[in-house]
């Protein structure tokens, strides 16, 4: 493509660490499910801790959460058509690799754990067949239902070594904070498989989405994802997960990153003040935060003042930051514009692709 509007044309382009693949309908999963689960899916659907059968408690302000131009020809759902994904995003932006994060169905929050295990296998097989096989630029996440640790481990072991999967997906809104002991066998399995954990905002855990109960508006729900991401990072550090598996990496996806500097200071101050309660934590929490966690760029907090965004990125640590578009969502970030112009070109390349290539073992 030789269009001057697309500066990556002809160059090795970005690695996009957050793309949401869609289905025309859940029938796309049928070939990947046993008969009994096909019937179950059709009769009972996905069973979540939420008010409505077919919509979220806080409906999005954009249909399908999508940008308005992301409907493929023929009106198929956004993200459901590989050709259109290529045309509108992968080819247009010369994306080197795109990492898929399937959000629907909500496997990790499915209350029926036998069904959840079947759905996990189906979604992962669907990623392979519909996306990885025809499109080598696409990689994905092993979806599991964490509340059945044995089934989750079996799922990880099934796909370990498959070149399409670059991480294990876990939700930041789960039944318990992810650092709790019940989830530790999953971290062991991921570490053994050499896979990082991708924690993308998701999950219908049944807990009120704020510490003071249920708010009214979608914007509040959106912001509660940041609370969940922080709570998850805190839990993984304080419980000792990042101590027990110091080489395991956690990618915090779609949770912002500007909050992490204040949090690092708060965690260190907390660790000192509650030292007798956290006696098992030998190193300062800020060291864990800098070592074990990566952050994707979308959505990014945007200061008013010129230069503050760059300062923020450098403070978090350029090497920790991974570009993500969140295609096809309404708050999508275009890689042409998303990274501030006053970063050095080495810093830009790190964020746009080199950090992700190193983390996920992707050849550029």
């Amino acid at each position, binding site marked *: 493509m030789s269009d001057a509007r697309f500066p990556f044309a002809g160059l090795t382009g970005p690695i996009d660490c957050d793309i949401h693949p869609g289905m025309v309908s859940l029938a796309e999963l049928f070939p990947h499910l046993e008969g009994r689960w096909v019937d179950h899916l059709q009769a009972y659907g996905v069973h979540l801790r939420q008010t409505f059968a077919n919509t979220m408690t806080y409906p999005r*302000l954009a249909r399908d959460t999508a940008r308005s131009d992301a409907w493929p020809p023929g009106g198929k759902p956004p993200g459901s058509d590989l050709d259109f994904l290529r045309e509108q995003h992968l080819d247009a932006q010369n994306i080197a690799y795109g990492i898929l994060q399937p959000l629907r169905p909500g496997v990790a929050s499915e209350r029926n754990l036998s069904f959840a295990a079947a759905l996990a296998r189906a979604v992962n097989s669907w990623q392979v067949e519909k996306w990885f096989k025809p499109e080598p630029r696409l990689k994905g996440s092993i979806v599991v239902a964490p509340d059945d640790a044995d089934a989750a481990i079996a799922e990880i072991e099934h796909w370990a070594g498959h070149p399409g999967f670059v991480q294990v997906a876990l939700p*930041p*809104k*789960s*039944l*318990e*904070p*992810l650092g*709790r002991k019940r989830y530790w066998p999953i971290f062991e399995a991921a570490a053994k498989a050499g896979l990082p954990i991708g924690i993308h905002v998701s*999950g219908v*855990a049944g*807990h*009120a*989405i*704020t*510490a*003071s*109960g249920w*708010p*009214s*508006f979608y*914007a*509040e729900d*959106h*912001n*509660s994802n*940041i*609370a*969940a991401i*922080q*709570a998850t990072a*805190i*839990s993984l550090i*304080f*419980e000792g997960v990042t101590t027990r598996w110091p080489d395991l990496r956690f990618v915090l996806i779609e949770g*912002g990153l*500007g*909050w992490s500097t*204040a*949090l690092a*200071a*708060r*965690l*260190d*101050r*907390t*660790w000192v*003040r*509650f030292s*007798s*309660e*956290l006696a098992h934590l030998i190193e300062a929490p800020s060291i864990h935060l800098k070592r074990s966690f990566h952050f994707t760029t979308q*959505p990014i*907090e945007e*200061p*008013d*003042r010129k230069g*503050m965004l760059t300062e923020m990125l450098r403070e978090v640590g350029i090497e920790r930051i991974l570009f993500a578009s969140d295609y096809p969502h*309404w*708050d999508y970030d275009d890689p042409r514009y998303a990274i501030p112009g006053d970063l050095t070109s080495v810093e830009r390349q790190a964020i746009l692709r080199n950090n992700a290539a190193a983390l996920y073992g992707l050849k550029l």
Partner: protein
Amino acid sequence: MTKSIDCDIHPALASVKELIPFLDPYWREMEESRGTNALYMSSYPPAMPLSAGLGWKTGDPLPGADVEAVRRQVLDVGGCDAAVCNLLSGAAMVANPYYAAALCRAMNDWLAETWLAQDRRFRGSLVVPINNVPAAVEEIERRAGDYRFVQVLLYLGGETPLGRMQFWPIYEAAEKADFTIGIHPGTAYRHAPTPTGWPSFRAEDYANIPPAFEGQLMSLISEGVFQKYPKLRVVILESGVTWLPVFMWRYAKLWRGTRRETPWLDRSPDEIIRQQVFASIAPIDAADPVRGIERLCEAAGSDGMWLYASDYPHWQFDDPDPFHGLPSSLRERFATENPRSAYPRIARILNV
């Protein structure tokens, strides 16, 4: 420093016996027969180092319970001309709404007699039964003429986000009487302290406080409380504070994309925060507190929001004055000018 105001100190009930004289016979008997045991909040168990410093043991005088000691340490040695007393009591969180109302009334009466009457420099925050809004309004109206009370104190973790319409009569009554609304950590634990459930450690609950403040502030703003009550001032207390500018950036951006759901918002949320929200700067989550303050002002685009507080007797820092090195003009702003903006009722009496 002249005319400085300490925006957050914590007097404490040594035992529930102190409260009994302020209860009517029916509630007196309830208290005595049910053994509620002074209603210390789970958020601040009395022996925890954060609550009381190291070395406090049962049998020792409870830090914050001795008027003379507080007067000496906060007012005389600290050099304050006014200190706002914020009670951290579970009275407001009692499940029985009538019991909660009686206990809150008694706590406010206890505060008035035991503290506010002992030294003209003490100011008080009203505790109110958040789950009994008519009684809360009645309590605010009862004390509207007593200018020793300057604030209505609400706690961070309740059953329903504070912006929701069931609480609006509280804001209406507060605005009418010029009471500031203060929000302080302390949770009823009716909900998990995080959206992903219950952490294991008290340290973890503590670390998760800033997102809880985001939720409450977002609720107040998005529900339109500041539009409905344009004179209302809200103070965020003991939050760690360095989370706030980042939240302002994030919410301003989020509002641009989601504002059709909240069409009553007439300006960007960060504008609303700069104009009507204040925050105490003790403790501050920053490796270097002085640099942290400077960055706060820069990042939030305001030096008018920040309030000096000692947070006595909580043990948040090893250095009793973490702000030495701060320019005196800023110290003046935070300890004198800003508190007077945040607490219009403070200047109504005395020479402050």
